[in-house]
């Protein structure tokens, strides 16, 4: 009976992990991220190592990209939902100048850090071929998931995956 129980829960777990992949998230073999050292909108230099021990959502986007703009509010809601948790969002604006980003932020209120990648060096290091593309980095600093295309960040599988990553030691 116990074995049947174990088998049942194993199957449920496998189906759940497959459903993460089916929804657009790609599970990766844990891998060290490429360098991400960029200035934010205030001119301060930010690095992934600044957020060690936290789950990090790295989101590559641009103001001219409608799907990127659409998912931004759900990222802000996620940030608020996770405000006391070991979680941080870093937006990386690809190939634009600070003024263009600031103009967009006058319309859409977000308060997580936006890093600027005007020469696309980071975009190329992270091998981003579509916008938006997002990565989830675990608390040990390894990239665990990627998703190309928009998602609703404050619900469903996005929250489930982030919760799982936060629970890991």
């Amino acid at each position, binding site marked *: 009976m116990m074995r049947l129980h174990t088998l049942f829960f194993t199957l449920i777990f496998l189906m759940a992990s497959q459903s993460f992949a089916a929804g657009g998230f790609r599970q990766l073999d844990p891998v060290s991220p490429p360098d991400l050292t960029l200035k934010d909108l205030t001119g301060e230099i930010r690095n992934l190592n600044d957020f060690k021990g936290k789950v990090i959502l790295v989101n590559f986007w641009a103001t*001219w990209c409608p799907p990127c703009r659409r998912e931004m509010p759900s990222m802000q809601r996620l940030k608020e939902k996770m405000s006391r948790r070991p979680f941080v969002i870093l937006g990386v604006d690809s190939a634009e100048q600070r003024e263009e980003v600031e103009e967009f932020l006058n319309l859409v209120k977000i308060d997580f850090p936006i890093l600027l990648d005007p020469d696309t060096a980071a975009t190329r290091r992270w091998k981003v*071929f*579509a916008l938006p593309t997002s*990565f989830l980095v675990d608390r040990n600093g390894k990239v665990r998931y990627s998703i190309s295309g928009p998602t609703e960040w404050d619900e469903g599988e996005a929250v489930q995956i982030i919760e799982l990553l936060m629970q890991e030691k």
Partner: protein
Amino acid sequence: MNWLVRITASLLLLVFSSALMAEEVEVTLPSGNVIAYTRYPASGNDLLLWFASERGLGKAESHAALELSEKGVEVWLFDLASALFLPQTPSSLDGIQAGDMQRLLERASSTGARLCVYAPSRAAVPVLRGLAGRPDINARVLLMHPNFYSRVDALDGADYLSFGSLKSVDVLVLQPRRSAATPWVDNQVEALRKTGANTALKMLERLREGFWVREDATDYEVNQGRNLAEHMLNWMKGTP
């Protein structure tokens, strides 16, 4: 007031006579498929084969074809995905046989006109496959934000499809600046050069992919979309 009526009538006549001149042409391909395309005849010595992207044809493209024919460039307008009842996905166009494309290119080449081929997005794949290894077909090729990846994985990299030799082909890659493909366009150009194609790049500033059909087009994109025929003439000639 009389003059206004006359001018309006003349303009209407001009527009409708040109539109009436456009004709549907059917071709039987080596695969057995029969496809139809729209031919916009013209009196000049230039022939443009215009292939729609995997998303099909937009009104701006038909308008531009008509305008070009009025300016002396004959246009054959193809929507391969629709003609072959294929789903509007990039991989659909990958299945079009090189022999079928060669039949279309040979037909165009046999007119003796100066040949130019325009292909946006994934339409680059059948066009380049058709031209590969055919040095007898002399064509200038305009690739609008071409997509000929064979594999793309974030964090890992991308591979490009191989086409064989394109030594006799002049390619101009037209890349809208506001595109996720822009950081990678040099790699695409390099991949084309490796086939032997004489490849140049033109960056289209302040524009996004498919700017001529976008529902969310900016005013600037709308204007550029309206001037597609004028742009095409410049790209065909290789002028900025």
